[in-house]
């Protein structure tokens, strides 16, 4: 497992202080992050692969400073966004998966082979040559997952990956997360997704208010909402 370290991280958007002097070490295999809307969850996870640069403090992934080694860090950390439509950048399904493998010094045959395997794993083989925008919402999120995992990241960070999906598709995505050998960090409002996670962190107003076993942190979050 990778070790992700936040050290004294603060971040503001304009006047609004979103994260306050946050220090955190993430090394468990499955980590969930919960909190109310606007509490700073997305900001926190975006710091991990350098989509946001903190105003103060540092974030490191396996000792690599994210701000200095963004390229290397992004190769290790795959990121799943809430809306797969924005994550799919190529016109067809297989091209989008293959996009993740460009500039890795792989031969065309190797890229084709890995793409094929990834599509197979996510049940998208029949759609390989179809336009990505014609897939259903659930299939699009599967494609986003396939495109991230084909790059063999060590960590998968997902920001509300099931929010736009129906119950069956969110269960399917949840099962896939469960089956992943990678370290996963998931932000979600669907608390049942986190039941068997190793650690859950509850954030409120940019500070950690609970951190520990799922039941503990989720109870704290429920109490907060009540």
């Amino acid at each position, binding site marked *: 497992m990778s070790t992700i370290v936040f050290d004294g991280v603060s971040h503001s958007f304009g006047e609004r202080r979103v994260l306050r002097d946050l220090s955190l070490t993430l090394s468990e295999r499955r980590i969930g992050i919960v909190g109310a809307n606007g509490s700073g969850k997305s900001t926190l996870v975006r710091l991990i692969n350098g*989509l946001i640069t903190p105003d103060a403090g540092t974030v490191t992934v396996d000792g690599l400073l994210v701000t200095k080694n963004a390229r290397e860090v*992004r190769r290790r950390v795959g990121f799943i966004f809430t809306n797969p439509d924005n*994550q799919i*950048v*190529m*016109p067809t399904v297989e*091209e989008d998966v293959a996009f993740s493998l460009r*500039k890795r010094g792989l031969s065309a045959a190797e890229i084709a082979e890995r793409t094929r395997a990834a599509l197979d794993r996510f049940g998208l083989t029949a759609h390989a040559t179809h*336009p990505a*925008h014609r897939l259903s919402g659930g299939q699009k999120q599967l494609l986003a997952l396939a495109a991230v995992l084909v790059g063999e990241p060590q960590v998968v960070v997902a920001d509300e990956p099931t929010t736009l999906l129906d119950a069956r598709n969110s269960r399917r995505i949840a099962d896939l997360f469960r089956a992943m050998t990678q370290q996963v960090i998931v932000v979600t409002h669907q608390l049942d997704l986190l039941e068997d996670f190793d650690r859950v962190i509850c954030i409120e107003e940019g500070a950690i208010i609970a951190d520990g076993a799922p039941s503990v942190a989720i109870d704290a979050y429920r109490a907060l909402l009540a």
Partner: protein
Amino acid sequence: MIGLYSPGHSLLHRAPTLLKLAVLSAGVLWVGFLGEPWQLLIALGVVAGLYLLAGVPARAAWQQVGPILWILLIAVPIQALLSGWVPAAVMALRLLVAVALAALFTLTTTVTAVLEGFQRLLRPFGRWVDADRVGLLVAITLRCIPLVAEIVTDVLEARRARGTQSSLLALAVPVVVRSLYAADAIGEALVARGLDD
């Protein structure tokens, strides 16, 4: 190309992209010089043969060529009134053959193949342009077309649901705003997926 690609393994699918592009463009040009309806009818027959060779399903072909027939339905009578039936027929056949040839290219060529073709074309100019970037730009532009189309449909639907008066501004503003948001999000995803490698 943009979701128009019709998968297959025919000679046309396997032909090198640049060769295919060159031959089809030459065909379109050549049709421009054919002045007799019977010549054009033969050309149309050849194109139809190419469609059969490519094994393009009739529906996919119709989606491509159908719209031009609607235009011809209006343009041909006008042209006929103005300059007679023969010139009208020549114009209609030329247009039909040209559109069918262009469509044949998109139906049998993946975007990846087009990009690779582009990159090969640009390689000699590698010192001035980054062929890879240009290719990527084209691909992402293609990807954005259905995305924006979807936004427009969404906004139109929302407008209908709210019963708002039809005004171009009321359509344009939300479409532009949402497109900009989407562009932002796609930019972010590109970074996350290692574009700046």
